[in-house]
């Protein structure tokens, strides 16, 4: 194995992806807790930690470009490094959705929530778990999981539709709540998009393993 340096650098980059994934996962969970408990302090922490997420993504990008420039990777190595750039970007965007939800906590202030908060929490858990497993699958280059995971997006979509319906009903019933109900629609939308981006990560795993760029089952449309 004469490519020890490059292999070590690639391993380090995979570790960094796991780290970035865990930072984002924590932000998803804490943003939800802040929303549920109306914990503005926690929400502010998430907003602050999102800057670290952004920085981590840039660090991974820089380090990956350095490996490409200095090691001239080919074939599987090249596909993996290209995928690392892409996955780091997807995780950073998922982090932005968590930040969005933390921001919603700060906007809601002390309004009494008229929301299916338990369903929202279940949706957040589901999206966070999907993201976690996609990062694991990426590191292990697990094509099977990469093909199976996007199917779960349908569950998230169903949850989204249910929450959406309940929030619309709430708006009709109590027009005074439109402001904060609208914020909660955004929160649910952010979680729905989180699961969509998991499918993008899965596409990259399949690319690393097979060399094929293919769209996975999940529908990535904004308003699906």
């Amino acid at each position, binding site marked *: *194995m*004469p*490519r020890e340096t*490059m292999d070590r650098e690639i391993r380090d980059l995979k570790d960094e992806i796991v780290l970035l994934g865990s930072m984002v996962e924590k932000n998803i969970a804490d943003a939800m807790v802040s929303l549920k408990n109306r914990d503005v302090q926690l929400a502010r922490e998430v907003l602050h930690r999102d800057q670290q997420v952004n920085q981590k993504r840039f660090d991974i990008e820089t380090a990956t470009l350095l490996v490409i420039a200095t090691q*001239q*990777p*080919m*074939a*599987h*190595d*090249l*596909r993996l490094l290209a995928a690392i750039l892409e996955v780091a970007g997807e995780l950073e965007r998922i982090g932005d959705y968590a930040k969005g939800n933390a921001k919603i906590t700060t906007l809601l202030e002390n309004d009494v929530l008229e929301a299916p908060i338990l369903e929202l929490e279940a949706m957040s858990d589901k999206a966070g778990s999907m993201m976690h497993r996609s990062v694991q699958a990426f590191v292990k280059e697990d094509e099977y999981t990469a093909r199976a995971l996007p199917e779960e997006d349908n569950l998230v979509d169903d949850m989204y539709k249910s929450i959406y319906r309940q929030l619309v009903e709430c708006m009709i019933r109590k027009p005074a709540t439109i402001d904060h109900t609208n914020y909660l629609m955004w929160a649910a939308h952010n979680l729905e998009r989180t699961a969509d981006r998991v499918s993008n990560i899965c596409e990259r795993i399949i690319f690393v393993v*097979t*060399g094929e760029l293919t769209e996975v089952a999940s529908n990535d449309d904004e308003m699906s």
Partner: protein
Amino acid sequence: MINLDTVKPVTTAAIETRGLDIFYGSFRAVKGVDLVVERQKITAIIGPSGCGKSTVLRTFNRMNDFIKSARVSGEVLFRGTNLYDEKVDPVEVRRLIGMVFQKPNPFPKSIYENIAWGARINGFHGNSDDLVERTLRQAALWDEVKDHLHKSAMDLSGGQQQRLCLARALAVEPEIILMDEPCSALDPIATLKIEDLMRELSQEYTIIIVTHNMQQAARASDRTAFFTMDTDRAGIMVELGETSQIFTNPRDKRTEDYITGRFG
């Protein structure tokens, strides 16, 4: 004798081997190569040292004839004719299938004579001035040498000498140009100039290049053939495909191991 000039191409391949085995004495250096080289494309042959890539390249214009112990079996088809048919004139083969070597090897003559002399002994009766200018332009050397065409070719830089050798090969109007590690003695700038030139020439000619430099094969060729050594140390062709496919998603693990630097 078969006059290769009058034989019309019968396939889309510029040259093709079928079941090619090459022996040095009793040692089989290359075995079972079925290589189709497409017309007006740049085909790179890559592989570890000793895998027979230069040996195969030299087979295309019968340069192996100069090695006494070398023997070829199978077919090398050019314009539908087996180049190893006893009725084929090897001199004619080398005119139609020119070669540029690893180390630039201009004649110890003037720049002008390097081109005009070679063409004349190959039966050229036209205007030598025009020929020299045309081929030097084709080889992207004209602007650098036009004011001292009668100076010795040996005074040129390595990169210029290599382009002169290319111009010399072009002067006899070949169909295929073989290049055996043409840039290994050149600096990076001279190397890129040759690669740009290859790209331009491929609009008119078929180019086959043997290179140790994988980045060069990836950058400069349309198709890539990967050779390796079999367990009996004979060279074999593992995989031939579009260069973009070979370097991003090779089909054979041996190709993957070689191009990712894990073997060879």
